Structures are given as structure tokens and as C-alpha cells.
């Protein structure tokens, strides 16, 4: 019995990381209807940016995150305004192609700058610290922090979307871009802000990934798939749905792994397919289909 509780718990905690990766994707998909193929690579980029600051100065990765996340946010805003906005339109292909190009460019830039070595952000004792829960159960402090960060980020975003004028503008631009423009909303600016927030969140995800394990320049694309699945399972436009999606994916993988290691990833994909078959719009979809 405790083994199953342990499996569930580890899966749910893993879901925290997955939903951090998924949130940025959900934002750009939800607001701009843009699929960012380079999403995972941007996370790795942010993590390397953090490593570049942490290693020479010996700073705490969590402190560095406070600098890297806003910087990535600014970068995201500028990227959207200067390049990605030009790709948006009726055709969904240009943003796919452009971000695919970014994916290749980022990987190779990182390779040239940081070499192919695997790197990590070291948080010392905290990395392996755990809280004993009696019996044979223990929960890692770091996965718990990641989960709390995911909940905090999603809570903040939920508040932003539902209770602020900016959130209203996001929703308006998402529901009907043309009507929003008629109402005096500058879509280009709104899209820039959405991408800025998406990048800031993906920076958090990337830094946590580098703290949790280690990373190398080519690791980005592998992160994209789970993020996608978490978004689709949760449903477009629902932020808490993204968290649920990440957790469902994490638990499915953990349960699959427990049965047989070869089934771990497969179980995640099967859960994703099952949701697609039963509820094609995701479990908690709120965005209208255009």
C-alpha cells in the first residue's frame, strides 16, 4: 500500500515540473493560437543563462532565478514584437516554421557557447533533502518546492487573467482578435506581453530542471512533448487545467513505470490519447474554438 502511495505522490510532484513547462505553452497557444516549437529550447536557454551567472559568482540558483525570469520575459516580449508577430495570421504554418528555426539556432548557439557538456545548478544539501512521512515514505524537498512554485505561478496567472484589465485584454484578444482591436486593444502589444509572461514561466521551469537533474544544449525538444500533452489534457485556456494535465501525465508515467519501466512514458502517452478520445477539447477547456 505505501508503495502505491509513494508512486502517486512522486507522480503528482513530477506533474508540478511538467505543468511549469506546460504553462508557457498554454499561454502562447491560448492567447496567440501560436505553437512555439522552440518552447523547450527556450527553457534550456534560460537554464544556461542562469548557469552562466551562478558558476562564476557562486550565487544561489533561486536568487539568480529572480533575475533570469524577468530577463527572459523581456526577451520574450521583444521576440514577439519584432519577429513572431509577423508570422501570425490565418496560416498556422509560419509560426511553426519560424519557431522550429529558433529551436535549431538556440541549440547550436548553446553548443558553441557552453560546449556539449552536461551542466547543472547546484543547490547543495537541498537537492537531496527530504521530509520523512513515517513508514517508508519520504518526500523530497526540492520536488515539493517545484510543485509549490507551479501552484504559485498558476495562481498568480489565474488572478491576472480573471481580475485585471490586462487579463481581460488577454482573453479578448484570444476570443476574437479583430473585435478586440476594434475595442482599442493593441494586439501586438498584448501578444508581446503574453509571450513575455510565457518566457518568464518557462525560465522558471528551465532553472528548476537544471537544479533537479542536469541539462545539455540538445535537451529542449524532449521537453516540448510533455508540455504539449499536459496542455491538451488540461484543456485550452484553463490554467488550473494545465496543472491537472501535468499531474495526470506525471501520475500516469509513475504508475506505468511501477508496472514496468518500459511502460512509463507509454502510459503517459496513453493517458493523453484517452483524454483526446473522450474529451477532444481537454478536461477543463474554456477557450472557444474559432
Amino acid at each position: 500500500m505505501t508503495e502505491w502511495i509513494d508512486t502517486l505522490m512522486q507522480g503528482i510532484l513530477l506533474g508540478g515540473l511538467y505543468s511549469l513547462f506546460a504553462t508557457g505553452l498554454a499561454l502562447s497557444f491560448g492567447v496567440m493560437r501560436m505553437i512555439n516549437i522552440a518552447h523547450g529550447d527556450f527553457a534550456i536557454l534560460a537554464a544556461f543563462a542562469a548557469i552562466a551567472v551562478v558558476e562564476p559568482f557562486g550565487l544561489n540558483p533561486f536568487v539568480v532565478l529572480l533575475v533570469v525570469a524577468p530577463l527572459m520575459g523581456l526577451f520574450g516580449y521583444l521576440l514577439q514584437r519584432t519577429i513572431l508577430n509577423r508570422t501570425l495570421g490565418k496560416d498556422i504554418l509560419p509560426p511553426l516554421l519560424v519557431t522550429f528555426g529558433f529551436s535549431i539556432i538556440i541549440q547550436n548557439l548553446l553548443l558553441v557557447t557552453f560546449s556539449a557538456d552536461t551542466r547543472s545548478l547546484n543547490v547543495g544539501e537541498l537537492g537531496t533533502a527530504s521530509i520523512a512521512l513515517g513508514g517508508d515514505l519520504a518526500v523530497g524537498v526540492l520536488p515539493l518546492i517545484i510543485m509549490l512554485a507551479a501552484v504559485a505561478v498558476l495562481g498568480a496567472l489565474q488572478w491576472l487573467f480573471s481580475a485585471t484589465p490586462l487579463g481581460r485584454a488577454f482573453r479578448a484578444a484570444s476570443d476574437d482578435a479583430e473585435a478586440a482591436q476594434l475595442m482599442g486593444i493593441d494586439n501586438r502589444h498584448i501578444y508581446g506581453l503574453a509571450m513575455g509572461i510565457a518566457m518568464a514561466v518557462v525560465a522558471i521551469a528551465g532553472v528548476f530542471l537544471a537544479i533537479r537533474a542536469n541539462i545539455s544544449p540538445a535537451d529542449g525538444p524532449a521537453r516540448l512533448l510533455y508540455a504539449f500533452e499536459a496542455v491538451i489534457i488540461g484543456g485550452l485556456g484553463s490554467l488550473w487545467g494545465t496543472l491537472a494535465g501535468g499531474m495526470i501525465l506525471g501520475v500516469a508515467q509513475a504508475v506505468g513505470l511501477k508496472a514496468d519501466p518500459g511502460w512509463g512514458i507509454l502510459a503517459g502517452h496513453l493517458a493523453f490519447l484517452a483524454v483526446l478520445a473522450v474529451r477532444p477539447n481537454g478536461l477543463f477547456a474554456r477557450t472557444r474554438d474559432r
Partner: protein
Amino acid sequence: MSENRSIDQGRRNTIKAIGGLTAGALLPAPWVHAANNTIKIGYVSPQTGPLAVFAEPDAFTLGEMKKALAGGIKVGGKTYAVEFVVKDSQSNSNRAADATSELILKDKVNIVVAGSTPATTNPVADQCELNGVPCVTNDTPWQPHFFGRGGDPKKGFEWTYHFFWGLEDVIGVFTSLWSQLPTNKAVGALFPNDSDGNAWGDPKLGFPPVLAQKGFKLVDKGRFQSPADDFSAYIAEFKKNNVEIVTGVLPPPDFANFWAQAGQQGFKPKIVTAAKATEFPAAVQSFGPRAEGLSVEVWWSPVHPFNSSLTGVSSAALAAAYTQATSRPWAMPLAFKHSLFEVAIDALKRAKDLEPESIRDAIRDTNLNTIVGPINFKKGPVPNVAKTPLVGGQWKKTAKGFELVVVENSLAPTVPVKDKLEAIKA
């Protein structure tokens, strides 16, 4: 308008160039082209993508080679300049095959060398075998290379030669390493679902039969899909079976995940011997203080008592020169890159002319003491394969950071042992 014209001019030049190339390609014998005083050595390497860490020493090694071969080499009484044509495999076996056929058909190289994992060596060697071009590869355990290409131990291959250690060596090193410490002999396995993981975990040719024979109990939950984010199922299984030794062949991110989760969930094995993940100093550094005590197979280190046949440089001096030039720590592929060119140049020097058959025969007769040890393709376990020595090492903390210290040499007594295996401090 003027812009249009220049584009047009460019196109014309391109067409001319293509015409020239086609005319060149139509010449009957490929080596006639290269015969004008230059020998071309083609080199395929995963310079970008997930395997790029193996290619880090490329630029340094090629620089050293160009320096050493500045005066050219003598083949059949005539001096030739040596040119290197380098192609990136992008860590992709299809791309590696394409790059090789480009080297053969377009660049008309005299010999092809390649290294770093079956994803590079197998397609490169296959292309060379197909096109009848001499080829030397290394840095892939010989079974995945030889049998992975459908090699027949009775016949072997005609054009392609390979040198590295094999699964039997790594199994031998690991088991004798583990016998140094008193344990309950329960071994937990972390084998991913890839060519390495499947070969190591193979119930007939891999670890399981040898471990059973030597009295170890193997706890193998099965093959996981890499990259994996969660190892708690493995850890629970290991704890339940009271595992004291953990082994595997897994990429650094997977091992980092496992090792951090093991810490969080209070799993404390005495010995952890993980291939691949702990072979590279930079990766080990990234594990932080918990890297101390990890052990691994060692294919080359600065203490290996070998010298380069080409430059005379010792293992220690090569490692020092690399660190000085690149400010990076030494890594095992460094010497293997160097040795690839040693074997190629040695064969070229002994060839009676630049006909592919002559170069191939010279490779076949190789009997050379290289920086990775003696290489002789006639003494291998199967035709076309030579074995290099393998020992075991442990990462120990020194004033300068972590150092890989040789602690086991039962299979290669020429490599000196510096210390004993110690249990990982809890």
C-alpha cells in the same frame, strides 16, 4: 536592376561550378583526383546534437594532427601533403551515412575515420564497406559495432576496421571492482531502452549470465525510456531487495535524476558504477558533492602508460596539453580521437601506394603501439576488430576537485592502480 543582375551572375557561377564538379565526378578512378600530391582523410564526428560531448576534443586533435603532419607523409617513396575533410554527423545515423558518402563520392577521400557510439561508427563503416573505401573506427564497444552491422565472425568485413573494448571487458572490470568490498552482492540495474542498455541487459550476452555465475544477485526492473524524469519505482524496488550495488549505462541527465531521487528517498548503496553518465569529468562536476565515490570503467586516463606513435607524446602530456589549450579537463575520447589518426597515418605510411586496396592491406597488417594501447587487428576476438585495455576507476575528492583514480586493473595489468575502491560515504 543591378541587384538582379548580380544574382544572375551568381547563379551562372554556381552552374559553372556544378558543371565542373560533375565533370570531376565522371572521371573513372576516384583516387586519380587525390593523386596530385595530397592525401585526403575523411573524418565523421557528432559535432552537434546529443552526442556532441564525444566530439569536444575534435578541434584540438585536428590541430595537433595538422601540426604533426605539416611536412606531409611519404607513401611509396613520394611525399604527400595531408588534408582533413571533417563532416558533422549531427548525432544522427542517417546524416552520418550521408556525410560518409559525400566524403567518398564528392571529396574523394583516400581513407575515412570515425568514432563515438554506434550511431556514428556503424553507418560510416557500412558506407565505406559498400563503396570499397578503407575505414578505421573506434569508441563503440565492439559487439554493437560488429554484430550491429550484421558481421559474421567467420568472414568479418573487407574494408572496415574497428578498435575498442567489448562487453566482456566491462563486465569483467565491474565484477572484479565490486569484489573489492564486502557487500551482500545484490546488484540493482539501470538499463535504458537503447542499443547500449539492451546489449548490457541481454539475458544471453549481457550482464545477467555472468553475474549469476559470479554469485551476484541482479535486480533488473526492465528497460526504461530515456530521458526519464522519475526513478522512484526503481528506488523502491532496490530498497525492497536491499540492493547495495547499483550499475547501469545511462545518460548523465537520467543518472542525475536517479541519484538525486535516491538521496531524497533515503536509498544509500555502497557502490555505484554507472557507465556513460560518469565517464566525463564535466558531467561528474555537475553532480556536485554527491559525485564522490562513484565508480566507472576507464578506457583511457592520463596515467595510462602509453605514448603516441605519431608525436611521441605521453598520456599525461596529451591531457595536460588539451587542458592548457582549451581550459577543459581531459576526457576519455581525447586519446581515442588521437589514436584514430595514429592508426590511419601509420597505415598510409606503410601502404605501397594510394590504391584503396593497398591502404586496406596496410590497415589489416597494423601492429602499432598507440596512445590507447597496442592495436593489432589480427589478434581481435573477431576479424577486423582489435581490443584496447579497460580498467576501473573511482571519482575521489582532491584539492583540485574530483579526480578519476584507477582502482582496478585485473584485465589490463600494464595500467598502474593507484588506490583501492572505497564505499560511498553515506
